């Protein structure tokens, strides 16, 4: 029997938590990206300023500092989140801040004739954004979102530092009890590599499917 098999059950338990955390944070990040991207393009000044503030704060500070702040400083305001919830919210909002700029840039890059045609057809601002511009922005959004998704997966490792028992936390626990650090961290690296390769493939397949029958980036 290969030597490392006894390490697998605890690591796989951690992997399951990592996957849950990644999926949860992905949902938050997607919602935050579109909300922030749309808000940056809003006609209302306060909405634009709020989106700008959110993006600057989350991109300007470190993800790990944000996690620590939410987990250790927020309780002073009477808000206690579990490590899992804190991880999902903070990582989702952190990646969402980067995603917001991607969404804004992609929507701004849709040819201006599309906007003019929507005005000519008497579409409201929201209808133009939602039914005309966003569908055409999805394809150019996908590749940078794929990169951000990998960044999100990698940042889930940070949540081990606020004691969530995900993959890296399990690895650390195993290391202190078995001292077989080489095998443990080698396996952990492989797990992450497999996960991120799978995620990259998923995004590529989605991109291929969505670009069937149209030129890249929508109509030109």
């Amino acid at each position: 029997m290969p030597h490392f098999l006894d390490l697998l059950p605890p690591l796989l338990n951690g992997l399951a938590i990592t996957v849950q955390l990644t999926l949860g944070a992905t949902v938050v990040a997607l919602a935050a990206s579109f909300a922030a991207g749309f808000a940056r393009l809003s006609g209302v000044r306060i909405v634009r300023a709020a989106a700008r503030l959110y993006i600057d704060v989350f991109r300007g500070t470190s993800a790990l500092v944000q996690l620590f702040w939410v987990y250790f400083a927020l309780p002073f305001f009477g808000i206690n989140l579990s490590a899992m919830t804190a991880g999902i919210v903070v990582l989702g909002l952190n990646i969402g801040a980067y995603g917001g700029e991607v969404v804004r840039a992609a929507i701004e890059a849709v040819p201006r004739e599309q906007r003019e045609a929507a005005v000519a057809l008497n579409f409201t601002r929201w209808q133009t954004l939602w039914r005309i511009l966003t569908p055409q922005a999805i394809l150019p959004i996908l590749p940078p979102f794929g990169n951000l998704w990998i960044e999100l997966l990698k940042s889930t490792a940070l949540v081990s530092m606020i004691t969530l028992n995900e993959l890296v936390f399990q690895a650390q626990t195993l290391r202190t009890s078995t001292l077989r650090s080489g095998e443990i961290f080698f396996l952990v690296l492989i797990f992450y590599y497999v996960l991120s390769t799978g995620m990259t493939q998923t995004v590529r397949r989605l991109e291929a499917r969505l670009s069937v029958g149209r030129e890249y980036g929508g109509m030109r």
Partner: protein
Amino acid sequence: MWDWQLTWQALPTLLEAFGVTLRATAGGMALAITLGLVWAVARRARNKLVARVSWWAVDFIRSTPLLVQIYFLFYVLPNFGVAWPPLTTGIIALGLHYSSYTAEVYRAGIEAVPRGQWEAATALNLGRFHTFRAVILPQAIPPVIPALGNYLVAMFKDTPLLAAITVHEMLQAAKLIGSETFRYLEPLTIVGIIFLVASLVSAQLIRRLEMRLARQ
């Protein structure tokens, strides 16, 4: 709610730790800039094996978390008789991790050099080394300096990870103050503000550099 006395007490300690943060960033960036260039050139090597291995290595390093790489260097290398101090380990991990990003930046720069430049170098009978050193890189690197700057800022924001291996940078200092005084709000908020100010200032500087390069 906010304790000003603790704020003034904590500030000198945190600013001192900021020095460690800056040293880690500077060391890590020096390594990332050099190693990234090595990757970028090695990926274009004539030797297929060298090229393949460099592609895979860069892909692997970029696909796995920095924190795990830090732990790997910190806990596994001593088994092979390599025992660096935590800060050195941290700098090497940061440099190695970000070299996988800078390699991509250099690649984009090299690919943007017109084909004719390569052909001219061949026509002048320049060797591989001189082609890169005298013709390709001087044209490939200046346009990508702002992109490298963006990764410098990203690396700066990743230095708190070194707290995981007991490096006394800002987050570690804030944690220690928190555990001594049972108040995390002030030290963690101050650290956040220092990061925010430093990143916004450097982002502004990079934007200015970008505009100056665009004008040339």
